């Protein structure tokens, strides 16, 4: 059951990712990205990361992508026009992508140190309680540093967005 769901949503994620690149209109691309985020959330859920799955759904698929689409709609961005391509790009492009994926797969398979095998249902510490425990006991310093970083970013955004007062 888990494996079937994994295959369905993994395939959906890949299809959305490919579609994201192929689509000409920014809104279509952005929605494909929402599809990728949503299926990633399901994959997290299958691996036992309940909290991460919901965070993925709320933050990425929900908040950030809505903002993307909002901006695209506000700017009323039109379709991209197809530029004339180099001759060798249109012939060698697909083989080179295939070669790159093959090399990456080879490196992951052989050159990197072997990792533990991932099994569905093996990981049990993905709930909100365990994440909170880790966040506020083990990783409290990185967490606080990150929040200061985010605060600086917020302040920067406010300064940039503020109307000039003459």
């Amino acid at each position, binding site marked *: 059951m888990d494996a079937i769901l994994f295959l369905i949503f993994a395939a959906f994620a890949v299809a959305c990712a490919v579609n994201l690149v192929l689509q000409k209109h920014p*809104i279509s691309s952005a*929605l494909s990205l929402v599809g990728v985020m949503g299926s990633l*959330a399901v994959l997290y859920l299958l691996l036992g990361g309940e*909290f991460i799955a*919901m965070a993925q759904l709320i933050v990425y698929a*929900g908040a950030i992508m*809505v903002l993307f*689409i*909002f901006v695209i709609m506000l700017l009323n961005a039109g379709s991209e026009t197809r530029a004339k391509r180099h001759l060798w790009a249109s012939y060698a492009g697909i083989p080179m992508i295939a070669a790159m994926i093959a090399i990456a797969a080879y490196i992951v398979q052989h050159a990197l140190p072997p990792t533990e095998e991932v099994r569905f249902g093996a990981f049990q510490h993905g709930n*909100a309680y365990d994440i909170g425990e880790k966040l506020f006991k083990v990783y409290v310093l990185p967490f606080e540093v990150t929040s200061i970083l985010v605060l600086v970013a917020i302040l920067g955004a406010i300064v940039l967005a503020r109307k000039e007062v003459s």
Partner: protein
Amino acid sequence: MNFLILSLIKAAVVAFVLMTTLAYLQWIERKVIAHIQLRVGPRRVGPHGLLQPLADVIKLLTKEDLLPSHVNKVFYFLAPFIAVFFALIAISVIPFGTEINVGPIHTAMQLTDLNIGVLFILGLSGMGVYGVALAGWASNNKYALLGGLRSSAQMISYELPMAMAIAAPLLMLNTLSFRHLVDAQGGYYFGFIPRWTIFQGPFPQIISFLLFGIAVFAETNRVPFDLPEAENELVAGFHTEYSSMKFASFFMAEYANMVTVSCVATLLFLGGWQPLWPAAYGSNFVPTAVFLFGAVLCFYHGFNPARSFDRITLPVAGVVFLGVAGIFLVPIVATILLPLFWFAAKVGFILFVYIWVRGTLPRFRYDQLMRFAWTFMFPVAIANLFITGLAVALS
């Protein structure tokens, strides 16, 4: 296999009840608004217009489905589906009552008890924006686009105070599963004050409750925050170009969202199905008393009819009420129905407030709406969360 059959039955029951509620919620809204405005509301179809929802459904299904020219077809068709899908699926994590234990059947009155149920609802409410935003954009209409833009901006802004208002009671109750949330609100102070979150120590969550209430009005695009479909400036906003069943989908999504957030407010703040006062003081007889009162009222008006057909319809309604009142006295059935009654009563009250507000308040201006969210709701929500956290840490 047993689990599968049971789940299918539960899903069918929940879907049927939800759909009926959505249809009749609209009838109730029209009636209540009408009486607030000193009108009588729908009353042509069936007694007191009770068959009006059915007539509306038939009308919407059989109307011509117009396809405006130059729309983006894929997204134009996709948008109502997205809206209605994310609105309806949220009901699957809402518990309606305690467990049913009849003979060999042991099951919770809930489709599924996620231990991240609250986050699931938050995620879905975030995804619901796409339906509205895409509908506005794909319609190729300036009014619709403005409606869609307003809606996405509004929902992004109000999601923040809403999430913070939800976080405060969660700090106190220490769980994310709706069922455990309600269990944590059981019991009474001094034997009679319920330990609902809005009364519970160390810091009663009344402020969170109000913030959540205001924010969900904006999230569901209801008056006074119905800027996305402001009739006098935007025709009908994001669903201007939609007709027939596609228009009905948006309508259904709006009402389903209302029901969902009312359920969430009940579960988070009003103690779910925990009664208003303990059974020792006779709270178990409240439903019986309510329905008996209804029956007496029906009989009284039936025998002193204001209109000729009241002579028949009202006594029939009275007999039905008497029957329901009797059912609540049967011990085995009462254990199942009592929690349902309290849950439905609280949800119904919140839905009534929704309609009441619509009949009372005018619409905000757009800049007022945004300023209200960012300069009032947001700081208050942060302060409330901070104080709650402090109170929980100190107690």
